């Protein structure tokens, strides 16, 4: 085994091992716990950095072990997987620091950080999975590792949310298993290839392929929160905010969206999908989700729930970008995988900071919060403008490419979809910005915890927030540079659509 084989394994284990070790720690060993976490974060960032460099140079990071007949365990760092891996590694770092600050003084931290690390390992495994079997393994691990985080508070409400989460995701996982088994029976589970490996399956198996596609997309659609499979997501808001942040930006929902991208491009391939005419229903569902979830977001009175519905809506951008089967739309979808993650995590970090510092949960309580917490509110504003798609934020780049992609494949209605969606986004985000900056606080804050440091909130809550807000701006401003997510998405698409 040389170093190129070892790196994907290290990428997974750099969070798995600390996670398992953390379980064994006593509650008071906070220093050691933080140390293990940060060690894992550092190792993972370095490994991901090396892999990014390697893949851009044309190196291949791949390791294989026997697993099932016809379906080995493959970890493969290609351009697409690294897109997702880098997102998880960077946001894991931010969220770990945030979570340490957020959970200070609460019980059961060892259990929390243990599962938190395993959750990230599962996400990285999902990203690096080189075939469907490996994908399934980590996808199910993710389901299991996230559950304890969702129910972390241990209240009846949390457990109810957990039940709903499990009901949706375990059912989804089972359907995914069925779909994978159908494909496995047809062609084994070979490695993902750009352009799909199912093109060689004889045409008489068309119905089986159609059923398998429906099973796979339904199974993945649960985590990607396609309507009507999204019911668990707003309920899961009861989890501690760092969990919601990670769930919404990186781990669970992205695993679903990423899986859909994989299935579309590397399992079926654009050609097969066009022959079987399978994408039209998916496009319809995604488009409906974009609009309907935004309407639902408008009705929410709780900040976190509004953010949750906004996630449902934004995730379907990614799905839509992939399902349109055109290179430009694909760039838009892929880059939104990153952009949505960074922007949404900023918004959740802010929501958590409001909650921890001032006890603010409801939108009506946000009046004038910008005067009290100007830095956090600035970060919130950047995230909100990004979500709305106003230049120069990252969100604008995504929408631009998605709309252009719709035109490219001869579906001009997509442009109108994004116009309407943008208006709706503005309708549910801009009032928050207005309230925060320009309304006058009406009453006392629900709970006031002024930190002793003199900062507006705990330092460990503020710094990650500012960091991701800054990233949101930079990704928009420097979108043209080859190093950013946009450049990388174009690299992926160049490899996926050999023209």
């Amino acid at each position, binding site marked *: 085994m040389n170093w190129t084989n070892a790196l994907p394994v290290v990428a997974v284990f750099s969070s798995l091992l600390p996670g398992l070790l953390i379980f064994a720690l006593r509650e008071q060993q906070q220093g050691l716990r933080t140390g293990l976490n940060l060690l894992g974060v550092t190792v993972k960032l370095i490994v991901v950095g090396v892999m990014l460099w390697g893949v851009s140079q044309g190196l291949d990071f791949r390791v294989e072990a026997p697993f*099932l007949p016809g379906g080995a365990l493959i970890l493969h760092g290609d351009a697409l997987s690294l897109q997702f891996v880098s997102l998880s590694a960077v946001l894991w770092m931010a969220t770990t620091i945030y979570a340490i600050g957020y959970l200070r003084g609460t019980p059961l931290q060892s259990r929390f950080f243990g599962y938190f690390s395993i959750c990230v390992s599962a996400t990285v495994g999902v990203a690096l999975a080189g075939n469907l079997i490996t994908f399934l393994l980590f996808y199910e691990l993710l389901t299991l590792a996230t559950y*304890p985080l969702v129910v972390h508070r241990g209240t009846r409400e949390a*457990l109810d949310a957990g039940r709903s989460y499990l009901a949706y995701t*375990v059912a989804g996982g089972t359907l995914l298993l069925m779909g994978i*088994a*159908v494909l496995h029976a047809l062609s084994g589970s070979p490695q993902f290839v750009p352009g799909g490996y199912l093109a060689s399956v004889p045409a008489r198996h068309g*119905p089986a392929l159609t059923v398998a596609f429906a099973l796979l997309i339904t199974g993945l659609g649960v985590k990607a929160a396609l309507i009507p499979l999204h019911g668990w997501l707003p309920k899961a808001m009861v989890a501690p905010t760092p969990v919601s942040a990670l769930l919404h930006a990186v781990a669970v929902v992205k695993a679903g969206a990423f899986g859909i991208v994989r299935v579309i491009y590397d399992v079926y391939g654009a050609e097969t999908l066009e022959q079987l005419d399978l994408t039209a229903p998916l496009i319809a569902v995604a488009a409906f989700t974009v609009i309907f979830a935004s309407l639902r977001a408008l009705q929410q009175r709780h900040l976190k729930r509004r953010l949750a519905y906004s996630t449902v809506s934004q995730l379907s951008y990614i799905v839509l970008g992939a399902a349109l089967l055109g290179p430009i739309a694909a760039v838009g979808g892929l880059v939104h995988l990153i952009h949505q993650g960074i922007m949404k995590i900023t918004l959740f970090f802010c929501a958590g900071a409001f909650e921890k510092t001032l006890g603010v949960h409801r939108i009506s309580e946000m009046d004038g919060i910008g005067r009290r917490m100007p830095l956090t509110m600035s970060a919130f504003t950047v995230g909100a403008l990004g979500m709305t798609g106003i230049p120069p934020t990252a969100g604008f780049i995504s929408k631009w490419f998605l709309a252009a992609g719709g035109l490219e494949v001869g579906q001009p209605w997509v442009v109108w979809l994004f116009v309407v969606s943008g208006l709706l986004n503005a309708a549910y985000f801009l009032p928050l910005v207005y309230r925060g900056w320009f309304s006058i606080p009406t009453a006392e804050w629900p709970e006031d915890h002024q930190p002793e440091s003199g900062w507006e909130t705990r330092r460990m809550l503020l710094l990650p927030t500012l960091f991701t807000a800054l990233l949101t701006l930079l990704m928009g401003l420097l979108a043209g540079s080859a190093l950013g997510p946009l450049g990388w998405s174009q690299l992926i698409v160049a490899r996926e659509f050999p023209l």
Partner: protein
Amino acid sequence: MNYALASLAIPFTVALLTLLLQRRSEANPIVPAITVLATAVSLVFAGLALETQAVSGAVSHLNVGGWDSPLAIRLRLTPLKALLLGFVALIHLLTGLYAWRAKPKIARDYWPLSALLHTSLAALILSADIFNLYVTLELLSLSAVALVCLSGPKAYTPALYYLLLSLGASLCYLMGVAVIYGQYGVLDMTVLAGIMEADHSTRFALLLMTAGLMLKGALWPLHLWLPEAHTYAPTPVSALLSGLVVKGPLFILWQLWNNLAPEALAREMGPLFAAGGVVALVSGGWSAFRAPFIKTLVAYSTVAQLGYALMGLGLLLFLQERIYAVALWLFVLAHGLAKVSMFLAAGEMQTLLGSKRVTAMRGATQTIPITMSAFAIAGISLIGMPPTGGFLAKWSLLEPLFTQANHWPWASGVLLGTFVSAAYVFRAIALGFYQAPMSREPRHFDRVSQWLALLPALLVGLMAFAGQDLIAWMAGVTQT
């Protein structure tokens, strides 16, 4: 063959020896040590038998006392039998170790009886004629009933039901044997396999024997005795009953239909078995979901999981593809390990939490994390999520179904089974995540017994990582 004989003879000797040792003093501390050690040795011998047998792929016979066919007690060893011998010894070893550590101390009669149970299972596995199988079945049931009684008067009623039903079942089986003997004049299975015809009396005999075996093996719909008996038995006994005892009759059933029965009859029977399996999965799972006590939940889950095995058997007979035999025996192995873990964990919970109720598991992730992990990992294997042994077995059952379009409907049985298992497993696990009540005095854990409960769960939890080799190897083992 000699190794296999040793694996059979050792527990037998121990059963007699411990009985003698018990006479002298009230509770001889040496007895558990001897039994556990002997089980380990028996496991080693079974391993050796498996190695020689699986390598040569050979089938060996032994005529006890040198008598030939009609009079002899014939033993037969195949790779699958060697594997099962090892499995039986392994499960006995795991439960034996736990019983040794158990607080409060287990009744001293546990040791000779469990050794006897081990002996009768080994004999059942090795027997080559259908009458000897009857004898070993009786031995098995009697020692199992006696073991259930060990937990005192509250277990007497379930034990009595178990005894009566078991006797009835044996009678059914014996009548079937008599009919076959009357018709063919032979009892040896290898000889019978060549000459059985699909006529009415054979059909009748096979059905009688099947009914008896299904009753003993608690296969749906003849499972009604199982939950009570498993709930009230002492913890290590419940583990043995669920992990092993019900698999004995299943093994005979498999030989009966897979080796003896004419293919035409087997094909007819297949869909019935498979359908019964699906119903078992759903109804057993539903009962487990509703169960008020932890052990009842685990016991009903055995009923449900046996449905998978029955489905595997049915599909094997019906579709005549070897992979279903692999699935069937993988289910048996995975379920055995998972169930041992679950019952031991359930027993620990009863002692540590001071209640039998499922609702007592509230907050268990915080108060007894290791035990809870054992329960959870074993449960995840029962659901069949990767990378557990349960997943491997489910995959072997599911994947070949999709190769032909007209077999697809059976996959929905697996789908249903997964949903129901997930429901009852996660119902229990979820309770563990409630905030634990704070004001409890610190509990005195026995870390060793907690880890003993966790060990089989870890084994089964990572089983699928050896999946490719295991499936290929099992395909070879189940050939004969």
